[in-house]
């Protein structure tokens, strides 16, 4: 099935050897040729010396979910030759370093081996030992350019841009690429059954990772205080936010910063800082991953109960516990939805790609301030750290932040008396007042029992009045969060429900299922609490497959608990090994369930 602009290859390397920049170069070159492409980085939780892989999928039709079928393996790590060569599809190719002979045992009859003496070429052409290691990767870029028909002009243009201010590096990169290119042309049969041909499918797109897009969203939303503690895969949200702020948030006159980024001592402090800053009136956020969310539990409950806006980006990784920090998963749905003891319920947004990371980040601030409550944006390692080809981001200059009901000194003055939690508006929200504005707005925020006036209480009726409004407020938020995306197929026999980064694989799977005669409607949940359309969709199908990336079917649990949809309508398809979802996972998961059901029906029939 592979062919022009439709294939996948994988690069097997050792981390800390500079392969990331070579792989990035490859991705971008293909992207600039106008061809839809995606890259998945599978890296270990260490700094140097362990195996690392980079998977590139080229698909002219725009399917850029992960695929587990590789037409070509670039095997640069002798440690993992065995498993890497085994992973190639029959009829596929392996490009390896022929400086040393390949162990005969590793050879496969159904796979073509392409040897290039990368190490030798580097030893012959570069002097320094570090350079020799780094340039090996660049050499294979050249070889692949020859094998796959990557446009060399594009590659050279990229080198110009990338090393604009580092001419020496530019020269060695160019040299390395030439070496690899020339060797391939001279020694290899470059007529592979797949390859690249320029298209025009990426002109209105960018290649960006979700964490950078998230940071851009925070910048554009006007966030001024960020607090965080480093953790994979969320660290790059703050790295990006910082570099964006350094570029766009310096006072032109004084050179001073229009933002404060606080590197906290841990996640308990980070969320505490966010609550403090939000209480004082700032747009503020933190970014973290599962272990951080666990640590933030107590204060998230405080934010919920005292009604303090806060935005938390949870870039999910594989749990439980420390789990696999460099693998992806959607395992924190319940932990976030019900974070903290007691009756708490939070608002969650589920972006599906970097584009939505950008827009949802902005939305999250608007929602947090409008509803005066913590709002989570749950992306994951796959979205956050991999480069995705998405639509160019747009900004509407007429946008004004929705800061919710916040009373000015004049508005406070006009009141007879100010009460923090009363009266409520149609969102079940009451007006805030900020410190530093007016004594009249002074109140005591607290996590202990309080009545609607903000006073301390231990009376059941007063206590209930407030927590009942909080429950109401959470329900009201369903009208304000991003609506689900629904994709109907005429004649559909069942529904598929999914969320976040599963989207690409599910959309691709819809086509594959159709080919097999299975017609399905598809709904992508984009937020919790659930919009009424979610319930409508689910109730309109006898069977809905809930596709998600965790062991326990957490989205299904949430749908069960928080809609009135009958349980029998919700079947679970779960993939949770830590790699990004593929269409094959989805198709296999659903067809297996369908087959099992038919089998059960048949058996029931026989018993009758």
């Amino acid at each position, binding site marked *: 099935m592979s062919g022009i602009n439709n294939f996948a290859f994988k690069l097997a390397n050792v981390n800390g050897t500079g392969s990331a920049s070579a792989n990035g170069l490859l991705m971008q070159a293909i*992207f*600039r040729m106008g061809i839809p492409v995606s890259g998945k980085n599978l890296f270990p939780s260490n700094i140097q010396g362990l195996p690392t892989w980079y998977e590139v999928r080229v698909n002219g039709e725009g399917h850029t979910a992960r695929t587990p079928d590789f037409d070509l393996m670039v095997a640069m790590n002798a440690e993992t030759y065995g498993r890497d060569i085994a992973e190639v599809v029959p009829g596929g190719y392996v490009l390896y370093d022929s400086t040393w002979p390949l162990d005969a045992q590793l050879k496969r009859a159904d796979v073509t081996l392409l040897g290039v003496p990368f190490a030798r070429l580097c030893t012959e052409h570069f002097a320094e030992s570090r350079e020799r290691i780094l340039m090996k990767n660049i050499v294979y870029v050249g070889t692949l350019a020859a094998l796959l028909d990557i446009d060399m002009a594009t590659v050279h243009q990229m080198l110009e841009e990338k090393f604009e201010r580092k001419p020496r590096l530019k020269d060695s990169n160019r040299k390395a690429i030439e070496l690899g290119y020339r060797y391939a042309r001279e020694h290899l049969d470059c007529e592979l059954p797949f390859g690249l041909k320029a298209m025009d499918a990426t002109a209105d797109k*960018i*290649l960006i990772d979700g964490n950078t897009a998230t940071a851009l969203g925070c*910048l*554009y*939303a*006007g*966030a*001024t*205080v960020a*607090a965080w503690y480093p953790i994979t895969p969320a660290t790059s949200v703050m790295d990006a936010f910082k570099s964006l702020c350094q570029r*766009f948030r310096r006072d032109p006159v*004084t*050179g*001073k*910063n*229009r933002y*404060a*980024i*606080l590197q*906290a*001592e*841990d996640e308990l*402090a*980070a*969320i*505490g*800082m*966010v*609550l*403090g*800053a*939000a*209480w*004082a009136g*700032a*747009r*503020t956020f933190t970014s973290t991953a599962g272990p951080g969310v666990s640590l933030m539990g*107590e*204060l998230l409950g*405080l934010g919920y109960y005292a009604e303090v806006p806060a935005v938390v980006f949870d870039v999910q990784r594989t749990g439980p516990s420390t789990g696999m920090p460099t693998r992806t998963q959607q395992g924190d749905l319940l932990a976030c939805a019900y974070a903290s003891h007691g009756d708490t319920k939070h608002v969650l947004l589920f972006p599906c790609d970097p584009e939505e990371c950008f827009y949802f980040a902005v939305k999250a601030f608007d929602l947090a301030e409008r509803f005066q409550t913590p709002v989570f944006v749950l992306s994951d390692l796959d979205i956050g750290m991999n480069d995705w080809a998405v639509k160019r*981001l*747009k*900004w*509407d*200059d007429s*946008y004004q*932040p929705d800061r919710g009901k916040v009373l000015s000194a004049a508005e406070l003055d006009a009141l007879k008396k100010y009460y923090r939690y009363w009266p409520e508006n149609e969102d079940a929200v009451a007006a805030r*007042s900020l*410190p*530093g504005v*007016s*004594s009249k*707005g*002074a109140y*005591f*925020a*607290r*996590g202990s029992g309080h009545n609607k006036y903000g006073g301390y209480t231990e009376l059941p009726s007063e206590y209930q009045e407030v927590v009942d409004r909080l429950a109401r407020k959470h329900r009201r938020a369903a009208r304000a969060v991003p609506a689900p995306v629904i994709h109907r197929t005429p004649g559909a026999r069942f529904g598929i429900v999914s969320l976040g980064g599963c989207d690409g694989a599910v959309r691709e799977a819809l086509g594959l299922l159709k080919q097999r005669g299975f017609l399905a409607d598809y709904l992508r949940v984009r937020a919790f609490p659930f919009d009424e359309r979610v319930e409508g969709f689910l109730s309109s199908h006898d069977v809905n497959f809930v596709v998600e990336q965790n062991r326990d079917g957490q989205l299904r649990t949430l749908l069960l608990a928080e809609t009135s949809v009958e349980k029998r309508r919700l079947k679970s398809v779960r993939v949770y090994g830590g790699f990004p979802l593929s269409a094959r996972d989805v198709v296999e998961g659903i067809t297996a369930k369908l087959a099992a059901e038919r089998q059960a029906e048949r058996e029931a029939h026989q018993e009758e």
Partner: protein
Amino acid sequence: MPSIKKPPVAHPSLQPNTLGLSLRDYEGAMSTLCAGCGHDSVTAALVRTFFELNVAPHMVAKLSGIGCSSKTPTYFLTGAHGFNSAHGRMPALASGAAAANRDLTIVGISGDGDSLSIGLGQLCHALRRNVRMLYLIENNGVYGLTKGQFSASSDVGSRSKKGEKNLQRPIDPVLLGLSLGASFIARGFSGDKQQLVALLKAALSHRGFALVDVLSPCVTFNDHEGSTKSYKHTRAHRLTVVETDFVPPAQEVTAQQEPGTTLSVTLHDGSTVRLSRVPEDYDPRDRSKVFSWLEAHQHRGEIPTGLLFLDEAHGDMHQMASTVERRLHDLPFEELCPGSAALEAFQKDYH
């Protein structure tokens, strides 16, 4: 026995300050603490301090954790916003508030349990960040609100009400602060209002993290014979190391002291602290001297009080972060959002 309603007794001192506010305007709700609780004396000192410093109540932000001590913010400055947060987490909330609005006078009130057990890490890091705030520990050597367990500031050999003897070494916020590079360290006693008011004034004028440890006896669970944090014990062993006199910016420093034992330090807002009766071998600007001196005296069971250490040179959180000298929380949106053209240009790098 306190009552929740406020008795309509006329106050002795109702003369207005320069803002036209009376002492009463700096008070808060009626205390619900035990009659005689040291924390209520701290409240009284805070009320007087803010009154005399002519602070506009709405510019103060009062934050606390959880504990009897952490209820204090309810009892002063009704006109200021307050946040009674979670146990041990006040330092982080205060840091966030200070980041958002640098014009606020941040007052954090905590207890020894709140600050030295569950909140120890946050205390140390807010201090290290040099967040501009008054950080006041109402230190009674016990968990009051949970009814009498030893806290991390309980001294070796001190006995609980049930008669148990503590054997673990105490965490002394003053020595701790010295080791961490704190920029302002004082110790007071809730039973000495005059000293406390002077210390609080200096602390509030300090541009940075002002750590004030106040011995504040718990009459219900830690005021018995055998306790080293009782009124009696504190009175008997207290030592005023340096007498502190606070002179606000406008006023002139006049009084003369014997040379050699007096020291004047000008704070960033122009006010002055005049330290007198400083021991010969003591220098409140010399971290290691202060440490040795205090360690030696505390080893003997003495309880040194006063403005113990001061370093006006270190930048506060905002200086270190080089933020604009404006409130971040309400910067105009136009100054924050780069707009569509910039976004368009930015994305060039992503193609």
